[in-house]
């Protein structure tokens, strides 16, 4: 049928609306994007968050300083050790204590392990969403090596609560360093393999290059840090620009790229993993012996196995012996139980589980620290401390009113900021490009919604 002139001009140009999520696999069940489409091109978008909001800040304000650790595990649940370190260091800043050197090295090592885990997960998931299942399987294998190590060290795989205010939970178990070195070698090999699979892969480049572009000016205006900022050529990294722990002693580089698209972010993350491997190797090389926790006055605790000799005849028999504790309790595997360390001053750091369940002093110390309004009480004041998490600057701002609970605990979740710009990032792209653009942000709802 021939069309009349009037019919041709009344061609509909109304845009269509498409709802993405929250029940869509690539939206992790927690994000909703309402897109406005013209054909298959996105002309507008609105992002809705809050589906995983569980009042992290309110919860922290209603428990003691020490009990907030399990909540911080659940911020970025892929790299929970980094969140632990961030919270502990903020509280320590408020107290004005510095942890012993060995503890700082331990924290650096676990932070970098976590960073590798996070980047592995991000790239694996992003590649899988584009159909590259091999990459996903390779990287999950690599991640498994690290999760095994984390489990060996902390007793848990994901929600670890390893770091304590003023210290860490446990020293390396026997054989850990060897195993870590071997795992890093394996991971480096896998990174090379994935590099071969993806970096020059026509399909991968077509799907990610020029997708989800943010220019430098907008990235800065949106306060974005981490790999996304480095992917627009700004070498900002808290580890270099405001060094904490012992990061200033290591030789590593901050990788940058200049595309500002999903592909550049992938390149930055790949290089960052290699740099993290480098940091861990240097840290393992240089880690000094010594104490792993402090007391409240900032003095180093003796790392001696037993200090209360003389007073406690029973305790002396305890040296080198395995504590008989219920094996279902975390951290009570063989190495931990034989590695018991008693501490003289128990005002700040929780005693080890073996000590807590193994003798009365440990039990009392633990009880005093966790009981309501009896635990550690920082001086009044405010403190902000930031660490470089896998997604960028993870900052905690705490306000203390001098009681046993934080008066305010604010968390700056690094992926909140790129998510605030997602609606602009998507404009001009196709519907199918939502997946790689969103995947390159590495949105972790735990720290986005808190």
């Amino acid at each position: 049928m021939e069309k009349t002139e009037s019919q041709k001009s009344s061609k509909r140009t109304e845009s269509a609306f498409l709802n993405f999520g929250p029940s869509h696999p690539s939206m992790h069940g927690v994000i909703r994007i309402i897109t406005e489409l013209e054909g298959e091109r996105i002309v507008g978008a609105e992002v809705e968050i809050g589906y995983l909001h569980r009042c992290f800040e309110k919860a922290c304000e209603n428990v003691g300083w020490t009990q907030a650790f399990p909540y911080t595990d659940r911020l970025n649940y892929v790299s929970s050790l980094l969140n632990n370190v961030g919270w502990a260091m903020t509280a320590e800043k408020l107290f004005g204590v510095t942890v012993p050197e060995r503890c700082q090295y331990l924290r650096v090592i676990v932070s970098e392990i976590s960073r590798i885990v996070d980047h592995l997960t991000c790239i694996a998931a992003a590649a899988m969403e584009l159909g590259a299942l091999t990459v996903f399987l390779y990287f999950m294998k690599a991640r498994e090596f690290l999760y095994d190590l984390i489990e060996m060290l902390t007793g848990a795989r994901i929600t670890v609560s390893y770091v304590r205010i003023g210290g860490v939970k446990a020293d390396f178990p026997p054989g850990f360093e060897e195993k870590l070195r071997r795992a890093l070698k394996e991971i480096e090999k896998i990174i090379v393999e994935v590099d071969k699979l993806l970096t020059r892969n026509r399909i991968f480049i077509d799907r990610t290059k020029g997708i989800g572009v943010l220019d430098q000016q907008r990235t800065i205006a949106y306060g974005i840090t981490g790999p996304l900022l480095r992917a627009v050529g700004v070498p900002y990294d808290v580890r270099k620009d405001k060094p904490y722990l012992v990061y200033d002693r290591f030789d590593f580089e901050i990788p940058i790229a200049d595309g500002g698209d999903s592909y550049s972010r992938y390149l930055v993350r790949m290089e960052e993993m290699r740099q993290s491997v480098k940091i861990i190797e240097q840290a393992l090389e240089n880690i000094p012996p010594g104490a792993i926790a402090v007391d409240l006055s900032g003095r180093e605790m003796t790392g001696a196995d037993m200090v209360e000799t003389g007073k406690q005849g029973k305790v002396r028999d305890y040296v080198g012996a395995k504590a008989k504790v219920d094996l279902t309790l975390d951290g009570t595997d063989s190495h931990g139980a034989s590695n018991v360390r008693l501490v003289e001053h128990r005002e700040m750091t929780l005693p080890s589980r073996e000590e807590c369940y193994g003798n009365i002093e440990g039990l009392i110390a633990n009880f005093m620290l966790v009981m309501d309004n009896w635990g550690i009480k920082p001086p009044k004041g405010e403190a902000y401390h930031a660490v470089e998490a896998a997604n960028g600057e993870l900052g905690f701002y705490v306000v203390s009113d001098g009681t046993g609970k934080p008066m305010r605990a604010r968390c700056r979740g690094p992926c909140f900021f790129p998510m605030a710009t997602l609606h602009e990032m998507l404009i001009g792209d196709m519907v199918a490009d939502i997946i790689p653009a969103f995947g390159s942000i590495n949105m972790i709802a735990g720290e986005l919604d808190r």
Partner: protein
Amino acid sequence: MSSTFEPVDNNTLKAIKKKFGDAVLEAGLDKGDLVAIVSPGKIHDIIVFLRDSPELDFKMLIDLFVVDYMPRKPRFEVVYHLHCLPRNERIRLRVQLDEKKCEVDTITDLYSVANWLEREAWDMFGVVFKGHPNLKRLLMYEPFEGHPLRRDYPINKRQPLIGPKN
């Protein structure tokens, strides 16, 4: 209010003190961080000055949030973290607000990310940001009543169940 800031010789603080005089109520170093408490009416002007002066150049808003100091008066405090990339300098601005008149000028016209940050701050504390283009809840759902992070909001308070309307 604590006046425990250490005095510090810093060009940024000098510049804002010179330009705004009495609007800078207190300034100094708090545990190594640059802090200034400024008066609520002037916050927008101060941030414009910090952002746009070429020698200050605080182009990045790192964080914006509210602290509830109940029962202190003034009760609320809005905290801004600004960052200057070239000089790697950071400043924290604090604005104290009374409960009766807890509103402050928006800075969405200066930093795009302030849009979400201010929405979250309003959602959680009920601090109004005057001139915000779309001041609605961000993390909580629309029919939620109250502002959950206020210290007088009971932690075990229940909200009425909501569901899709037929």
